[in-house]
């Protein structure tokens, strides 16, 4: 884990559907991280291409394949459930690699070189994926703006209103559930540690930043009593980095990692 410029931070960034599924896992921790809550194989490839500043039209396929497989190994070690599409991509990469090793077809050699390049389809797939990642970024920015405005809470403007109310029992229950949910979320600390979810951990971390501006990275892990709690804490920190509420940095290489809260952007 390194500062915000660290190579792998953005790859493991998580979504709101961060779920810790409870599949069979090693060490009896009962903890499996479902990878579909993270990113997909195309994201990993794009990440590697950008990190290594590779020309997308000339991907060193052997090198990339090797890196990709290394990541799969790490995921297995972390107990991350590797979904089928990751294996499909691994097979595709190995297939392209083997095709690249074959001597070019002499008959078609003069024909469009590009069309015969076994990497072409993957390149277009990556470009297409990047296109939609850019579109998603745009939506993210728009959402940020919309998050900064409020619509008036509709209340009863006409104080003498005798209108019929269009509220169903369902609405009423929903409202109550909302209250209960809010009420319970205010009592996080009373919850037994076994039940600490990422969301709760995030709230806990937010609370510690209400008091402190900067904390050391390790301080979040000293109190952890189980591996599960360590992972939950780690994922919660990542989520807060993603939400741009905190950032991680080092004064110098190998020094203690610091975490600071980010001031809300004005």
């Amino acid at each position: 884990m390194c500062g915000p410029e660290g190579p792998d931070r953005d790859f493991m960034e998580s979504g709101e559907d961060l779920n810790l599924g409870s599949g069979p896992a090693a060490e009896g921790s009962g903890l499996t991280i479902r990878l579909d809550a993270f990113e997909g194989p195309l994201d990993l490839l794009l990440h590697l291409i950008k990190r290594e500043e590779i020309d997308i039209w000339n991907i060193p396929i052997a090198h990339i394949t090797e890196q990709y497989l290394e990541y799969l190994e790490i995921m297995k070690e972390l107990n991350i459930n590797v979904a089928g599409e990751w294996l499909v991509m691994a097979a595709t990469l190995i297939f392209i690699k083997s095709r690249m090793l074959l001597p070019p077809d002499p008959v078609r050699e003069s024909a469009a070189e590009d069309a015969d390049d076994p990497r072409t389809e993957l390149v277009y797939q990556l470009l297409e994926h990047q296109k939609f990642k850019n579109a998603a970024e745009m939506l993210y920015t728009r959402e940020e703006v919309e998050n900064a405005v409020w619509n008036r809470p509709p209340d009863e403007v006409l104080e003498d209103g005798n209108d019929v109310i269009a509220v169903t029992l369902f609405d009423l229950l929903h409202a109550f559930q909302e209250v209960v949910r809010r009420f319970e979320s205010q009592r996080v600390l009373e919850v037994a540690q076994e039940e600490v979810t990422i969301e709760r951990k995030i709230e806990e971390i937010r609370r510690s930043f209400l008091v402190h501006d900067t904390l050391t990275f390790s301080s979040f892990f000293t109190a952890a009593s189980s591996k599960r709690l360590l992972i939950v804490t780690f994922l919660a920190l990542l989520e807060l980095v993603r939400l741009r509420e905190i950032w991680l940095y080092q004064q110098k290489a190998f020094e203690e990692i610091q975490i600071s809260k980010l001031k809300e952007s004005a």
Partner: protein
Amino acid sequence: MQAVMEAIIYVAEEPVKAEQFREIFPEEAPDSIRQALAALVEGFNARPGGMCIREVAGGYRMTTRPEHHEQIRAYLKTRPGAKLSMAALETLAVIAYKQPVTLAEILAIRGKKSSTALQTLLERKLVCILGRKEVVGRPILYGTSREFLIHFGLNSLADLPTLEEFAQMAGDQL
């Protein structure tokens, strides 16, 4: 500062008191806050718009101007029916499930002031006064009314679904 004050009066569920602005602008002198507020109210109400800022219950509140109420009502009727605000709905839900209940207890559960919402519910006769709680201050106890049962098509309060049933219902719908 006036623009922020205006925005806050606009979003507030309850009338905003002058002291609350002191918390929002801790670096400003109370006098300049008072002046800015007075200037805001005067300026806002001088413009020929559809809303005005009124002093209600010791605070400032944005409302429509009474002279437009006929047309506003005509507009509201084009909708399927006036909805209760989320604040009123939540308050009603708390009263329905926790009755008899005092305003302070509602506040504790909702975590928000609920007096305006309660006022609305009383006016709409969905909620009624059940008596007083025999503790210090003898606060009023609220409960749901007969209107409430009629509106929600319930025979009795025992017909209210439990939260568990609701969770199941919601689950089935998805």
